[in-house]
């Protein structure tokens, strides 16, 4: 993984540097014009958020059922990145909403659920920090449940129709506006690569920390 890290980082940096050009080259949306351009980063950050939650949920399950400490490290990295990308998505969404709907925040189904999912993972970190001994297991339970509620967040907009664009908008974009679809895919890949590099760094840090703890313990055991 360490060998792959440098190319991954370079590729991510290049993609992010080129992303403004890709976005600038897409056509203007017919009603929102320039404001709609935030969509490319907004959508991409939610995709990275979904990936982070998936990683956290699966890694939590692996930790819980296999008692593999690597699962725990991956889960904590996933939860932190879920908070990061979720915060980015909420902020870009709020900015977009201010211009498109006229309000910063709307108590729409998906917005509410996204905020709650954000709270779940903040709760996850709180449990890890203040849960005392055995908190990793508690947090793993939280991670599994958090990941399980996320599909409901995704589907909630279809069940409870409100002003947030329907999920089919993105699906139909490929036929109606291929240039916009291309830019969206480009940004999504860039965000996923950013997610992958941050995840690698974070997991690496966590395993260094575990190694340090192990060394301290070994030192104390010495006569």
């Amino acid at each position, binding site marked *: 993984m360490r060998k792959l890290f440098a190319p991954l980082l370079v590729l991510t940096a290049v993609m992010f540097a080129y992303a403004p050009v890709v976005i600038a080259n897409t056509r203007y949306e017919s009603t929102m014009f320039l404001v709609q351009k935030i969509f490319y980063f907004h959508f991409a950050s939610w995709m990275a958020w979904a990936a982070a939650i998936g990683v956290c949920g699966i890694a939590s399950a692996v930790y*819980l*059922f296999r008692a593999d400490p690597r699962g725990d490290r991956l889960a904590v990295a996933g939860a932190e990145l879920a908070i990061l990308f979720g915060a980015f998505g909420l902020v870009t969404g709020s900015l977009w909403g201010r211009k498109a709907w006229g309000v910063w925040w709307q108590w729409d189904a998906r917005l*509410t*659920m996204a905020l*709650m*999912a954000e*709270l*779940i993972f903040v*709760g996850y970190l*709180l*449990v890890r920090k*203040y*849960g*005392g*001994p*055995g*908190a990793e*297991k*508690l947090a*793993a*339970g*939280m991670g*599994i*449940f*958090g990941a*399980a*509620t996320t599909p*409901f967040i995704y589907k*909630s907009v279809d*069940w409870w129709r409100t002003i947030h664009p329907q999920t089919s908008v993105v699906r139909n974009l490929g036929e109606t506006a291929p240039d916009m679809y291309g830019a969206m895919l480009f940004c999504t890949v860039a965000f996923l690569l950013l997610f992958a590099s941050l995840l690698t760094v974070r997991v690496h840090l966590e395993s260094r920390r575990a190694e340090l703890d192990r060394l301290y313990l070994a030192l104390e055991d010495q006569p």
Partner: protein
Amino acid sequence: MSFATTAFLVLKKDFTIEVKSGEILYTTLFFAVSCVLIFAIAFVREGQPVEGAGAGILWIAVLFAGNLALGRTFERERYGETVRALLLTPAPRAAIYVGKLLGIVALLVAAECLLVPMVAFLFDAPLFARPLLLAAILGLGTVGFASVGTLFAAMLVRSRTRDVMLPILLYPITVPVIIAGVLGTSALLQSPADEPVALLWIWLLVSFDVVFVTLALWTFEPLMTE
């Protein structure tokens, strides 16, 4: 011993203790009633209750009381140092979980039997217009909330900070259940009652319950292993 027998025995044990002391039932009921009274102070303007507040008040009272009850049931196990004994029994762990869950659900249903008439009476809410639908929403919502609550309360027994941690973990995760419960109930409180919307939320509650109970049964065993 079969799964159902074990679950029933755990439930019977809790029920016997509760009948003797009445501690959790009375404190929970009293707390729920105080909650409703505080809302009455906040939401009654010039003698008239705010329209549509009934559903939210009912659910908040149930959820707060539920949090209190969940904390207390496992506190008793911890205090009597019977958690380990319970987990050492050669019975499926999931059966112990089901027994505990049924106890919490029964307790909350008892609280709801008091709260529903009280909210209907104090806030002039037509809660008894569709009794079956209301019972379905309350019952399913309680099961969803209690299934996650029982699991987390059991996990937190060993944690030092369990009193703060339980609500922190529980409320964000059960938010889908809370939303479905509150919106389903307020659909019933409209005049005339919006039955299709209420039914939609009932189906959503069923799906949430299935997911939460399945996940809880699946994770209870590894989460309770030291």
